[in-house]
């Protein structure tokens, strides 16, 4: 049963994680963590939502946790650099060159986008990123965020506006 569940949702989970972290290796690790968590907690699933919604919610939570960890690490390594304890091994690994998104758009543009996304409120970021992925309807996003469809539409709209403003401000100064 679990095998068929993995087979059914692996692609969606992997791509959901990838939308958040923009790195294949990290996305695969996260997707594995998602399914391990699903395996552990399957008995606790109360069928209050669809199984797929529950799984994708776990994927979103894991991806956000990963990004928070990365940001903490980033802040800590810049602090270390300031006080002169910089260790090259502690630096965040740059996304690998075989990342298709990077090949397509270039490292810098992706980094700018990631930084802009990081400054968005979490709900806006989730709604916006999921809306960009094929396979998620507004209803499904609303279920994941435990909100209404109109709220999702509003979140996506505000996210787009915020992102535009942030990117505009960035390119104005660079």
């Amino acid at each position, binding site marked *: 049963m679990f095998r068929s569940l993995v087979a059914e949702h692996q692609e969606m989970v992997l791509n959901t994680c990838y939308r958040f972290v923009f790195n294949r290796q990290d996305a695969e690790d996260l997707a594995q963590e998602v399914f391990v968590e699903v395996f552990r907690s399957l008995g606790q699933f109360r069928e209050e939502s669809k199984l797929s919604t529950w799984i994708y919610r776990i994927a979103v939570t894991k991806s956000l946790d990963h990004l928070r960890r990365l940001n903490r690490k980033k802040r800590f390594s810049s602090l270390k650099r300031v006080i002169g304890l910089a260790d090259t091994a502690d630096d965040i690994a740059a996304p690998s060159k075989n990342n298709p998104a990077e090949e*397509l758009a270039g490292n810098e543009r992706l980094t700018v986008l990631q930084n802009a996304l990081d400054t968005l409120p979490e709900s806006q970021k989730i709604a916006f990123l999921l809306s960009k992925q094929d396979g998620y309807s507004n209803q499904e996003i609303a279920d994941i965020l435990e909100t209404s469809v109109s709220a999702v539409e509003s979140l996506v709209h505000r996210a787009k506006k915020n992102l535009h403003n942030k990117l505009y401000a960035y390119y104005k100064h660079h």
Partner: protein
Amino acid sequence: MKLINEKIELEVCKTLEVLDEIKPLEVQHIFRVKLMQRIDVDLKQKSSNRVVSRFDYRLAYMVLLLIINLGSAFVSLRQNADQSMKNIVQLADIQSDDYPAQEFAYYDQTTSYEHRLP
């Protein structure tokens, strides 16, 4: 000014397009193999943890029983020791006080006189 704005808008659009241009990843076959291995390891760890916790529970129970046994043994030993000490003291009193009454003090004195004789 308008030209600069247009240029900035173009950059913004290009950057936002990055998200639309990301092609979905295909899941590699090895993904499921790795996942199943990970779950196997997780299951083994879980079962060994369960054994360890069960063992801990048994060990704690055994230690508790041992403490109770030792405690009760110690208490009974102490009671017996008190009792036997009393008996010993009583016995010693009986042995040493052969002539405890005043009337028999003479015998003690005689003994001491005998000792004083050259």
